[in-house]
Protein backbone atom coordinates (compact mmCIF):
# COMPACT_ATOMS: atom_id res chain seq x y z
CA UNK A 1 0.00 0.00 0.00
CA UNK A 2 1.86 3.00 -1.29
CA UNK A 3 1.09 6.32 0.33
CA UNK A 4 1.12 9.19 -2.18
CA UNK A 5 3.64 11.90 -1.26
CA UNK A 6 3.13 15.27 -2.86
CA UNK A 7 5.43 18.23 -3.04
CA UNK A 8 4.00 21.60 -2.16
CA UNK A 9 6.76 24.12 -2.46
CA UNK A 10 9.13 23.44 0.40
CA UNK A 11 6.82 20.95 1.98
CA UNK A 12 6.04 17.31 1.53
CA UNK A 13 2.50 16.11 2.07
CA UNK A 14 1.83 12.43 2.75
CA UNK A 15 -1.84 11.65 2.47
CA UNK A 16 -2.74 8.30 4.01
CA UNK A 17 -5.71 6.77 2.22
CA UNK A 18 -6.53 3.72 4.32
CA UNK A 19 -5.36 1.62 7.24
CA UNK A 20 -1.66 0.81 7.04
CA UNK A 21 0.16 -2.33 8.02
CA UNK A 22 3.36 -2.07 10.03
CA UNK A 23 5.50 -2.53 6.95
CA UNK A 24 3.52 0.14 5.09
CA UNK A 25 4.25 2.56 7.93
CA UNK A 26 7.95 1.79 7.91
CA UNK A 27 8.09 2.12 4.15
CA UNK A 28 6.37 5.50 4.40
CA UNK A 29 8.82 6.67 7.01
CA UNK A 30 11.76 5.63 4.92
CA UNK A 31 10.30 7.25 1.84
CA UNK A 32 9.73 10.53 3.63
CA UNK A 33 13.20 10.65 5.13
CA UNK A 34 14.69 10.05 1.71
CA UNK A 35 12.57 12.67 0.01
CA UNK A 36 13.17 15.30 2.66
CA UNK A 37 16.81 14.97 1.77
CA UNK A 38 16.45 14.97 -1.98
CA UNK A 39 13.79 17.70 -2.11
CA UNK A 40 15.35 19.80 0.66
CA UNK A 41 11.96 20.05 2.23
CA UNK A 42 11.47 22.15 5.36
CA UNK A 43 8.44 20.31 6.63
CA UNK A 44 6.54 17.07 6.25
CA UNK A 45 2.78 17.05 6.70
CA UNK A 46 1.26 13.64 7.39
CA UNK A 47 -2.49 13.46 6.92
CA UNK A 48 -4.01 10.70 9.04
CA UNK A 49 -7.67 11.53 8.43
CA UNK A 50 -8.28 8.04 7.03
CA UNK A 51 -6.81 6.21 10.00
CA UNK A 52 -9.38 4.81 12.38
CA UNK A 53 -6.78 3.60 14.85
CA UNK A 54 -3.44 5.10 15.84
CA UNK A 55 -1.70 2.62 18.09
CA UNK A 56 1.67 2.60 19.86
CA UNK A 57 3.53 1.39 16.77
CA UNK A 58 2.10 4.09 14.56
CA UNK A 59 2.95 6.76 17.11
CA UNK A 60 6.48 5.43 17.56
CA UNK A 61 7.01 5.43 13.82
CA UNK A 62 5.80 9.02 13.51
CA UNK A 63 7.98 10.12 16.41
CA UNK A 64 10.97 8.38 14.88
CA UNK A 65 10.22 10.10 11.60
CA UNK A 66 10.11 13.47 13.35
CA UNK A 67 13.46 12.81 14.99
CA UNK A 68 15.09 11.68 11.80
CA UNK A 69 14.00 14.59 9.68
CA UNK A 70 14.75 17.10 12.41
CA UNK A 71 18.37 16.15 11.86
CA UNK A 72 17.86 17.47 8.35
CA UNK A 73 16.35 20.67 9.62
CA UNK A 74 12.74 19.80 8.83
CA UNK A 75 9.72 19.54 11.05
CA UNK A 76 6.83 17.09 11.13
CA UNK A 77 3.20 18.06 11.34
CA UNK A 78 0.41 15.54 11.74
CA UNK A 79 -3.06 16.57 10.63
CA UNK A 80 -6.48 14.98 10.57
CA UNK A 81 -6.47 12.97 13.78
CA UNK A 82 -10.11 11.94 14.23
CA UNK A 83 -11.75 12.99 17.52
CA UNK A 84 -12.34 9.37 18.50
CA UNK A 85 -8.80 8.40 17.65
CA UNK A 86 -7.48 11.33 19.68
CA UNK A 87 -9.54 10.16 22.62
CA UNK A 88 -8.26 6.57 22.35
CA UNK A 89 -4.69 7.73 22.02
CA UNK A 90 -4.95 9.97 25.05
CA UNK A 91 -6.54 7.20 27.09
CA UNK A 92 -3.96 4.67 26.05
CA UNK A 93 -1.18 7.12 26.77
CA UNK A 94 0.00 7.19 23.17
CA UNK A 95 1.76 10.50 22.60
CA UNK A 96 3.12 12.26 19.60
CA UNK A 97 6.14 13.96 21.13
CA UNK A 98 8.24 16.22 19.02
CA UNK A 99 5.46 16.41 16.48
CA UNK A 100 3.22 19.38 15.78
CA UNK A 101 -0.42 18.56 15.38
CA UNK A 102 -3.05 20.59 13.55
CA UNK A 103 -6.65 20.07 12.65
CA UNK A 104 -6.16 19.81 8.91
CA UNK A 105 -3.94 20.63 5.97
CA UNK A 106 -5.15 24.21 5.80
CA UNK A 107 -4.17 24.77 9.42
CA UNK A 108 -0.79 23.14 8.94
CA UNK A 109 -0.02 25.40 5.99
CA UNK A 110 -1.18 28.46 7.92
CA UNK A 111 1.07 27.46 10.79
CA UNK A 112 4.05 27.08 8.49
CA UNK A 113 3.31 30.36 6.72
CA UNK A 114 2.95 32.04 10.08
CA UNK A 115 6.38 30.95 11.08
CA UNK A 116 7.81 32.77 8.12
CA UNK A 117 5.84 36.02 8.53
CA UNK A 118 4.11 36.51 11.88
CA UNK A 119 1.28 39.14 11.94
CA UNK A 120 -1.23 40.47 14.39
CA UNK A 121 -4.95 41.10 14.48
CA UNK A 122 -6.83 43.45 16.79
CA UNK A 123 -10.22 43.54 18.38
CA UNK A 124 -11.86 46.32 20.30
CA UNK A 125 -12.22 45.72 23.98
Amino acid at each position, binding site marked *: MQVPILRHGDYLIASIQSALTDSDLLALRQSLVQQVGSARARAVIVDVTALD*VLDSFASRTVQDLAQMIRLRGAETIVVGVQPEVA*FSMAQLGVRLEGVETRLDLEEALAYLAGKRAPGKRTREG
Partner: protein
Amino acid sequence: MEPPCGAADSPSSVGVLDNEATIEIASSGDILPARQKGRELARHVGFSSAEATLIATVISELVRNIVLYAKRGQIIVRRAESAGRPGIVVVARDDGPGIPDVRQALCVGFSTSGSLGLGLPGAKRLMDEFEIVSEVGIGTTVTVKKWTAGLTCSSGV
Protein backbone atom coordinates in the same frame (compact mmCIF):
# COMPACT_ATOMS: atom_id res chain seq x y z
CA MET B 1 -34.17 -17.55 29.91
CA GLU B 2 -31.80 -17.26 27.03
CA PRO B 3 -30.53 -13.72 26.50
CA PRO B 4 -31.84 -12.19 23.29
CA CYS B 5 -29.29 -12.20 20.51
CA GLY B 6 -29.49 -8.62 19.29
CA ALA B 7 -28.92 -5.51 21.35
CA ALA B 8 -31.68 -2.93 21.14
CA ASP B 9 -29.41 -0.47 19.40
CA SER B 10 -27.70 -2.95 17.13
CA PRO B 11 -27.73 -1.71 13.56
CA SER B 12 -27.44 -5.05 11.81
CA SER B 13 -29.32 -8.29 12.00
CA VAL B 14 -28.00 -11.22 13.91
CA GLY B 15 -26.71 -14.68 13.29
CA VAL B 16 -25.16 -16.99 15.84
CA LEU B 17 -21.84 -16.85 13.98
CA ASP B 18 -21.83 -13.06 14.22
CA ASN B 19 -21.35 -13.20 17.95
CA GLU B 20 -17.86 -14.64 17.98
CA ALA B 21 -14.73 -14.64 15.86
CA THR B 22 -11.30 -16.21 16.19
CA ILE B 23 -8.28 -14.77 14.42
CA GLU B 24 -5.01 -16.65 14.20
CA ILE B 25 -2.00 -14.44 14.81
CA ALA B 26 1.24 -15.32 13.10
CA SER B 27 2.68 -11.99 12.01
CA SER B 28 2.16 -8.26 12.22
CA GLY B 29 0.09 -8.56 9.04
CA ASP B 30 -2.64 -10.05 11.22
CA ILE B 31 -3.02 -6.89 13.27
CA LEU B 32 -5.29 -5.07 10.85
CA PRO B 33 -7.78 -7.90 10.30
CA ALA B 34 -7.90 -8.65 14.02
CA ARG B 35 -8.78 -5.12 14.99
CA GLN B 36 -11.17 -4.69 12.09
CA LYS B 37 -13.04 -7.78 13.21
CA GLY B 38 -13.05 -6.44 16.75
CA ARG B 39 -14.47 -3.14 15.61
CA GLU B 40 -17.21 -4.86 13.61
CA LEU B 41 -18.25 -7.03 16.50
CA ALA B 42 -18.16 -4.07 18.87
CA ARG B 43 -20.53 -2.07 16.64
CA HIS B 44 -22.72 -5.11 16.25
CA VAL B 45 -22.96 -5.47 20.02
CA GLY B 46 -24.13 -1.87 20.20
CA PHE B 47 -21.04 0.08 21.19
CA SER B 48 -20.73 3.62 19.88
CA SER B 49 -18.18 4.40 17.20
CA ALA B 50 -15.90 6.01 19.80
CA GLU B 51 -16.05 2.93 22.01
CA ALA B 52 -15.44 0.66 19.04
CA THR B 53 -12.30 2.69 18.28
CA LEU B 54 -11.11 2.14 21.85
CA ILE B 55 -11.71 -1.57 21.58
CA ALA B 56 -9.98 -1.80 18.20
CA THR B 57 -6.99 0.07 19.63
CA VAL B 58 -6.76 -2.31 22.59
CA ILE B 59 -6.92 -5.30 20.27
CA SER B 60 -4.15 -3.77 18.20
CA GLU B 61 -1.92 -3.53 21.27
CA LEU B 62 -2.72 -7.05 22.46
CA VAL B 63 -1.98 -8.53 19.05
CA ARG B 64 1.26 -6.61 18.97
CA ASN B 65 2.30 -8.17 22.23
CA ILE B 66 1.66 -11.61 20.82
CA VAL B 67 3.65 -10.91 17.67
CA LEU B 68 6.48 -9.31 19.60
CA TYR B 69 6.95 -11.85 22.35
CA ALA B 70 5.29 -15.09 21.37
CA LYS B 71 5.41 -14.93 17.59
CA ARG B 72 2.12 -16.85 17.33
CA GLY B 73 -1.20 -16.85 19.09
CA GLN B 74 -4.91 -16.26 18.83
CA ILE B 75 -7.39 -13.50 19.33
CA ILE B 76 -10.97 -14.39 20.17
CA VAL B 77 -13.61 -11.67 20.19
CA ARG B 78 -16.95 -12.59 21.58
CA ARG B 79 -20.25 -10.96 22.47
CA ALA B 80 -21.22 -11.43 26.08
CA GLU B 81 -23.80 -10.24 28.55
CA SER B 82 -23.64 -9.15 32.18
CA ALA B 83 -26.55 -7.96 34.30
CA GLY B 84 -28.62 -7.56 31.18
CA ARG B 85 -26.07 -5.36 29.43
CA PRO B 86 -24.41 -6.55 26.27
CA GLY B 87 -20.66 -6.29 25.96
CA ILE B 88 -17.56 -7.69 24.35
CA VAL B 89 -14.90 -10.10 25.54
CA VAL B 90 -11.46 -10.19 23.93
CA VAL B 91 -9.11 -13.06 24.68
CA ALA B 92 -5.49 -12.80 23.55
CA ARG B 93 -3.79 -16.15 23.88
CA ASP B 94 -0.32 -17.36 23.05
CA ASP B 95 2.08 -20.24 23.75
CA GLY B 96 4.98 -17.89 24.12
CA PRO B 97 7.67 -17.57 26.75
CA GLY B 98 5.32 -16.18 29.36
CA ILE B 99 5.80 -13.15 31.58
CA PRO B 100 7.98 -13.71 34.64
CA ASP B 101 6.79 -10.69 36.58
CA VAL B 102 3.26 -9.77 35.65
CA ARG B 103 3.08 -6.88 38.08
CA GLN B 104 6.10 -5.27 36.50
CA ALA B 105 4.60 -5.71 33.05
CA LEU B 106 1.55 -3.79 34.21
CA CYS B 107 3.65 -0.76 35.09
CA VAL B 108 3.37 2.01 32.56
CA GLY B 109 6.56 2.55 30.64
CA PHE B 110 8.04 -0.84 31.38
CA SER B 111 9.08 -2.90 28.43
CA THR B 112 11.68 -5.52 27.64
CA SER B 113 11.62 -5.02 23.93
CA GLY B 114 12.49 -1.35 23.73
CA SER B 115 8.95 -0.35 22.87
CA LEU B 116 6.93 2.02 24.97
CA GLY B 117 5.37 -0.86 26.88
CA LEU B 118 1.87 0.53 26.65
CA GLY B 119 0.00 -2.62 25.74
CA LEU B 120 -1.02 -4.10 29.06
CA PRO B 121 -1.48 -1.03 31.27
CA GLY B 122 -3.33 0.66 28.44
CA ALA B 123 -5.62 -2.30 27.93
CA LYS B 124 -6.30 -2.38 31.65
CA ARG B 125 -7.20 1.31 31.63
CA LEU B 126 -9.41 1.31 28.60
CA MET B 127 -11.47 -1.77 29.35
CA ASP B 128 -13.85 -2.49 32.20
CA GLU B 129 -12.35 -5.82 33.21
CA PHE B 130 -8.85 -7.11 32.80
CA GLU B 131 -7.36 -10.46 33.64
CA ILE B 132 -3.98 -11.95 32.82
CA VAL B 133 -2.69 -15.45 33.32
CA SER B 134 0.92 -16.10 32.42
CA GLU B 135 3.33 -18.89 33.11
CA VAL B 136 6.96 -18.92 32.08
CA GLY B 137 7.58 -21.52 29.42
CA ILE B 138 3.85 -22.11 28.92
CA GLY B 139 2.27 -18.96 27.59
CA THR B 140 0.06 -15.99 28.31
CA THR B 141 -3.66 -15.36 28.18
CA VAL B 142 -5.04 -11.85 28.51
CA THR B 143 -8.80 -11.46 28.86
CA VAL B 144 -10.43 -8.05 28.66
CA LYS B 145 -14.08 -7.11 28.76
CA LYS B 146 -16.08 -4.01 28.09
CA TRP B 147 -19.76 -3.45 28.73
CA THR B 148 -22.12 -1.06 27.02
CA ALA B 149 -23.22 1.71 29.32
CA GLY B 150 -26.16 0.85 31.52
CA LEU B 151 -28.52 3.35 33.06
CA THR B 152 -26.86 5.76 35.41
CA CYS B 153 -28.13 8.24 37.93
CA SER B 154 -27.54 11.73 36.65
CA SER B 155 -25.62 13.72 39.22
CA GLY B 156 -25.92 17.46 38.89
CA VAL B 157 -26.73 19.53 35.86
